[in-house]
């Protein structure tokens, strides 16, 4: 046990650098994915026929195929189309596209849950369709989405480990390097598991806080009095 702590201690700087890369991948994936997801959710709910089909196509394609395949297609496949990207940008793009498809479904569900009534009430005072979406529907739908949506950042944080397979220097890649260097794969992978666990724990706490902060007084999902 003591040995393991010593190992962990000496490897810490490498792990921290890796953890930063992992966090960066997660943050970019979640944020860019959010923009993509929101746009596709809106397109799917409110768009005309073409926009709706475009959104459905994107969502189904990226939810229906493995993230790893998507990553390889971006990194190894795009050069074939004359677009060569570095490792990090490739990972960013694949993660964002993948996460966007999942986030779209969470957001779509909560937009639909807000219901037609709010749209009608918004239109009735003279707000345009887009204004009603912007000021009435989305502020409620986004809050409503948080509990279920919170799975996505946590899940994506762990999924970023696939970036290891195109040698992005993330946490997983560092673990592998240390495992080889020290001939102690168990120690290395346990250490990396502990770090993932800690990051998930902190992220979860942050998301809980967000959920608490966004609560509408007197209003809960079922529309009952809180």
């Amino acid at each position, binding site marked *: 046990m003591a040995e393991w702590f010593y190992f962990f201690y000496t490897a810490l700087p490498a792990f921290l650098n890796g953890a930063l890369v992992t966090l960066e991948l997660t943050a970019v994936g979640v944020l860019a994915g959010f923009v993509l997801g929101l746009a596709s959710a809106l397109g799917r709910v409110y768009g005309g026929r073409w926009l709706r089909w475009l959104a459905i196509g994107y969502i189904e394609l990226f939810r229906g195929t493995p993230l790893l395949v998507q990553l390889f297609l971006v990194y190894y496949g795009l050069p074939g189309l004359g677009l060569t990207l570095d490792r990090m940008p490739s990972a960013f793009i694949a993660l964002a596209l993948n996460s966007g498809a999942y986030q779209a479904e969470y957001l779509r569900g909560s937009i639909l849950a807000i219901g037609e009534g709010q749209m009608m009430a918004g239109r009735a005072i*003279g707000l345009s369709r887009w204004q009603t979406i912007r000021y009435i529907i989305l502020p409620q739908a986004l809050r409503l989405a948080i509990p279920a949506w919170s799975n996505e950042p946590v899940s994506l944080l762990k999924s970023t480990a696939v970036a290891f397979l195109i040698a992005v220097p993330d946490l997983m890649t560092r673990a592998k390097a240390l495992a080889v260097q020290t001939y102690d794969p168990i120690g290395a992978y346990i250490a990396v598991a502990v770090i993932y666990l800690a990051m998930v724990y902190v992220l979860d706490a942050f998301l809980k806080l967000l959920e608490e902060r966004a609560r509408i*007084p*007197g209003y809960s999902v079922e529309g009952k009095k809180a």
Partner: protein
Amino acid sequence: MSQPVLVAQNLTKTYGNNVIFRNISLSVNERDTIVIVGPSGTGKSTLLRCLNLLTKADSGKIWLDGVEITDPTCCSEDECRQRIGMVFQNFLLFNHLTALDNVMIGLTKVKKMPKEQARRKAVEELERVGLVDRAGHYPGQLSGGQQQRVAIARALAMEPRVMLFDEPTSALDPELIGEVLAVMKQLAREGMTMLVVTHEMGFAREVANRMIFMEKGQILEEGTPDDLFERPKYERTRQFLWKIAELHGRKAPEENG
């Protein structure tokens, strides 16, 4: 006779093969309070939604202050809609906004009024419905009656030419109905033009200057409340009115004012 404010001519509405109403015409004049009654599923809500363009009628024309709002070249639908207030059976307040913000949002986003001015106006409207002390409450923190009064204030803030009420008290517990009716009576006294779908026959007899009995997508009969209650042309009208008067009208608690 006073000016017509809202006029509908030969409105027809269908959903698929289902004709909701056919060739309905009506005219709401300045300071009128018109009560529409009729059995469930007759198309009363659909008619109100057509009148403020929330639903498109299949055919027919609608004029607001002499301007045809069903003519797409006349004005934008959003502009027309803000001049026609609407109050819904289930209130439909914006759940994420306080009472004050519910009333303000139309002023700031539609009328582009500066924040401070909008706030003052919103406070005035909440005063009008007796709810300034609840300005900071969210809809989920208000009773049904209070929510409906905020909804009325929200519509009033836009300074509509006419107010449409779709069964504004039928989702309320009996003891909360009075406070909403009191606000509506006060509006009628102030000269607001109103078209009200309701089963509150006490309100109809006391406030309405005209009553419309709608059945199966048609206006079967219209006249003063006394005409319809005491001298109806059709037996059907008499039956229906007295039945709902028994169910709703008599039991309604007397409110002050």
